[in-house]
Structures are given as C-alpha cells and as structure tokens.
C-alpha cells in the first residue's frame, strides 16, 4: 500500500497563563492509502489536537507549532500558507466532528451547505452543486433526498445530521477523512449504522480514515491499526489484533481492562488509579509511572522511547522489553 500521510515528530504547545501545555509532544505516525487508523486515549491526551493540527485548525496563539512535519502527497501540510491549506480542507482532507446537532449552520438549508462546499472546491455553478448535493444525500442513505435538500438542520434527527456531515465531507472525494469522535453523541443503534456507512463509502473511493475516539468498541470494529496516546505522546502503536490480544504497554492493558463486558459478572468495574497528570507539570521520567502498577525505579528517571518490540508493534515502556509477549 502507498503511504498517504507521514507525520514526524509533531509538537504542538499551548501557552496559557499557568504555563506551557505540551498538548502534542513528539508524535510520529503514518497512514497508508485505504487504511483506517484509530487513535485512542483519555480526554486531553492530544488526539484531537493532533488531528486538527494536520489541517492547521489550531488557533495560534495560544497554540504554537514547535516542530515536526506532516508529509501529504509530497507536501508538508504544516508549512502551507492559509490559501493553500484552505484548498486542502474539505477537498483532499475532510473532517467530521463529534456533535452532529450543532455541526450544521442553523440558518441555511442542508442543500445550500453541501452545495457551497462543492461549489468552492469543484467550481460548479449553484444548480449543478445542488444536483450533486442531492446525489450525496442519496449516497449517505437519506430517504427522499430531493425534499430533504430543501430542509433546515433542525428538521433532521441527530443520526441524519451526521449523515449529512459525512455527505458534505465526502462530496469532493477526499483522500483522507479525519473523524473526530463521529459516533460519540449518537444512539448506540445509530452508531453502528454510521460506522457501517463510513466503511462502505471508504471502500468505494479508496479513502483513508483517521478515527479519533475513546470508544475501544468502535476501534475494534473499524480500525486496521491503532495508536494509543497518553499525555501528548504515543505509548503504543500496532495492528488492531495485537492491541486487543497482546497489549504491551501497561496503559493499554489497563485501558482494555476498564471496558465493562456485557453478560460477564466482573464485580467492581476496573479503573485506572489516579488521574491524568497536569500537562504543564508532567512528572519526570515516564508520564504514566505514577499510575502504573508495574513502575520500576528506572521509570521515574528516564522517559522511555518508542521502540519496535515486534515488526509493526511499537511500545514506549521500559518494562515492556523484558516481557516480550
């Protein structure tokens, strides 16, 4: 498979009154064509910031791009000027957001909104754009698209709005779709439909997906590879099978253990002790050691590097090396 996106040593810091937050601190990953990469982690671990940085959607200031590159189709996304990056947004790389209820402009019809994105990137006239908007609504499974295209967002249910968002995001055949918790705000039954729809459309246009979520069930369902983030760094990265069956980082293992299982009497629900440390006051050594059951003395002194334990399975943990798998 061809490499679509290569991110190297991405560093995004936020300068706020309390100090400097290292929201993303040296993240490396890549996405191949047609592949789905899942990013998991607790709230505030930098997964959304990583995604938004790719499209230069981080407000600067307070944000600062401290370093790194993001190579996409031979160019560095992070170094694009504002006109250049606008041609990429919604066109080569699209993004959908968590909250479908508020992701559409309430004062315009959905046809108008989809059409506007199409007009912008494909240079069609308004009438052709509306035709295409109808096609897109049909494609994302909205019944009676010709009538729906003239309706306002408040006339649609949450699931339908997320379909409209997907239709809008895919209207220009993007190479990469960034989905920032696309199903978190939806009913469980609708969640499955939306995921199925995304995977279905992905196959049709051979698009890659960067799926950001804290829902491990979603990851297991859709991802080929998984990146686990903690405190702005990648702690483990492997194919989806290895992550679920041979997790090597203690954080990944505790994350998996804290998922409640249906029909199994586990007694008390598992949790990870402690809380995510302050990002502007990180402990020395490994960020996870205060909460880690397996922490050794070396974990308090030296920050572990991301190392390949097996081909394609990267882990940042001093203790993982001895364990093998």
């Amino acid at each position, binding site marked *: 498979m061809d490499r679509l996106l290569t991110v190297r040593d991405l560093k995004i810091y936020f300068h706020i009154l309390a100090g400097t937050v290292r929201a993303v601190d040296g993240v490396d990953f890549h996405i191949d064509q047609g592949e789905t990469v899942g990013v998991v982690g607790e709230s505030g671990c930098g997964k959304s910031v990583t995604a938004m940085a790719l*499209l230069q*959607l981080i407000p600067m200031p307070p944000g600062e791009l401290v370093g790194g590159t993001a190579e996409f189709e031979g160019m560095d996304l992070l170094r694009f000027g504002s006109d250049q990056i*606008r*041609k*990429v*947004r*919604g*066109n080569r790389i*699209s*993004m*959908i*957001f*968590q*909250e479908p209820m*508020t*992701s*559409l*402009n*309430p*004062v*315009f019809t959905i046809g108008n909104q989809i059409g*506007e*994105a199409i007009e*912008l*990137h494909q240079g069609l006239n308004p009438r052709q754009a509306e035709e*295409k908007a109808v*096609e*897109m609504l*049909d*494609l*994302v*499974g909205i*019944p*009676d698209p010709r*009538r*729906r295209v003239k309706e306002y967002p*408040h006339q649609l*249910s949450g*699931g*339908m709005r997320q379909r409209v*968002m997907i239709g*809008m*995001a*895919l209207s220009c*055949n993007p190479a990469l779709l960034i989905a920032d918790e696309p199903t978190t705000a939806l009913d469980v039954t609708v969640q499955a*439909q939306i995921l*199925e*729809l995304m995977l*279905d*459309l992905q196959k*049709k*246009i051979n698009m890659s997906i960067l799926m950001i979520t804290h829902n491990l069930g979603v990851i297991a369902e859709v991802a080929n590879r998984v990146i686990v983030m903690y405190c702005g760094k990648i702690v483990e990265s492997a194919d989806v099978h290895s992550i679920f069956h041979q997790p090597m980082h203690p954080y990944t293992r505790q994350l998996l253990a804290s998922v409640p299982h249906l029909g199994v009497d586990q007694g008390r629900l598992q949790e990870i002790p402690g809380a995510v440390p302050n990002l502007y006051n990180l402990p020395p050594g490994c960020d996870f050691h205060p909460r880690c059951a397996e922490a050794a003395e070396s974990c308090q002194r030296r920050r572990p590097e991301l190392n390949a334990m097996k081909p394609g399975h990267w882990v940042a943990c001093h203790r993982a090396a001895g364990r093998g798998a």
Partner: protein
Amino acid sequence: MSIHSASANTASHLAEAPYSPPRARFWGFEYIPAERQLLHSFLSNWLVLGALAMLILLVFIAVFAHWVAPVDPLEQTLKARLTPPIWNERGISPYYLGTDRLGRDVLSNIIYGLRISLLVGFFAVGISMIIGLTLGLTAGYKRGFWETFIMRAVDVQLSLPLIMVALCFMVIFGQGLWKMIIVLAIAGWAEYARTVRGTVLSIREKEYVESAHALGFGPWTIMVKYLLINSITPVLVLSAVQVPRVIILEATLSFLGLGVPVTTPSIGLAIARGYQVLFSGSWWASIFPGLALMLLVACINIVADWLRDALEPRSREQV
C-alpha cells in the same frame, strides 16, 4: 471509482421512517411550529396589534405629510398667533390644534416633525448599525490587536456624554439635518460593536463554525454566512430599542438648540417654542407636540418589547 456515480440504494436498509411534515393546529394548544410562533404571539396580543396599527398610521402620515398637513408648517400668520385648538370658542379652522407665538400651525408642525423624527431615527440607527456591525464582527473574528483597539474605542465612545459630542460637532460643522443624523449615528455605533462582538465570540466556538473552517471556507464566507447571520437576533432587538432612543435624543438636542436648524419643522423645536409661552396659558403649542412624540415612542417601544420577547424567550423570565 467515484462515489458520485454510486447507485441510489447504498444504505437503503438503513432508511429511516417515511417523512411527513408536522401538522399545525394554529389556534389550538397542541402544537405551533416554530416559524408560526412569532405570528401567533403577535396576533394574540391586542396591545401590540394596536400599537403597530398606530405606528403604521404615524409612518403613513409622516411620509405623506405634504398631503395630510392642513397648512404649510413654516407659514407665519401673525393675525392668527396663539390661536387655541379648534374646540375652544376662539379656535379658527384650519388650525385644528392651534398656533404658536408666530402663528405657525401646531398640527402641521407635528406632522412634518414626525417625518424628521422618523427619518433621523431610522437613518441614524441604520448607519450606526452598519458601522457597529462591521467593527464588532471583525473584532470578534480577528481578535488580537484589532479587537483590543476597537473595544477600547467603544469604551471611550460610551464614556463621552452625547450632548457634549453633539455640541462640539455642531460648533465645528454647523447645524443641519444630515449632520444631526451623523452625530446620532456616531453616538450609537459603540453599542452595536459591543453586542455583535459578544455574540460573535460565542458563535465562533460553535461546531458549525469549526466545521466551516474544516471545509475550507474563506474568512469572508465564515464572517458573513456563519457569524453575521447567526448574530442578527440581538442586533434586531438592539435596533428596536435604539430607534425610539434616537428619536428622543433628536428632540432633546433640537429642544436645546443643538439639533436641526430652526427652519426645519421638528417636534423638539416645536416643544421648545411652545415652552416659552407655556405658562402664559397657551399650553397647546408645547403639549401637543409632546404628546405626539410620546405616542410615537410608546408605539415603537411596545412593538420593540414584543419583538424582543418573541425573538428571545429567555428575556421574559429574566425580568
């Protein structure tokens, strides 16, 4: 393969229930669709209905003043000076509401004065709205130095007493109707800028704005189609309150001699002229213009209040 050529039934197994539009029972209690709630709350309120009818009548009179007014408002008939209203035994037709010290017809002055009041009210508010919207919108969108600059200018503007600003302006540029409108417009832009910037700050954090950025829309599209259009409600509400305020201000400034030239028929001027003979028994020259001004402002206020309640249901609870 392009997704656009895909067939229609991609996700037909996911199809949701067939769509049927909600049925409205307009006069019932069950359900009133959002787009009709405005009309409903309007029709159910006779006070507002009366005020609006009166307002329309006043606007009509003002627009067609040259046909409605019985005589030329500036014509001085010294023989008929200080004529009382028509129902007094000394009253003379066609001076239905009497005349002032120089024999000018009070009713005609009121009718032509309404025209000036409304002209000043709408143009001054319109101009200050355009200035304030532009500055507030760009301040809220751009942030940084531009925002600080604009908002400090707003603070300065709001701290200056209007009478003083008007006085300085009139001294430098002289009197005149359009100069008056410009003074009042300058006095009003700051409130618009502050209001719009506030709403823009809250709307820019909404997800649809974020998603507009992610779709690659340029700054102008986002400012106009996303931020401006969604902050129209508070602007409308503010305008409805500003128009009567500006009308009163015009009358006040004219009363003080800082407003329109004395050759312009204005309600403020008429009150000022009548005021000089008020205590010698000729009450009509001052009282009737005052009542007319009160009626106009009250009508606008009632309609504006209703509009604010209808557009912002929360303001009803906060009172």
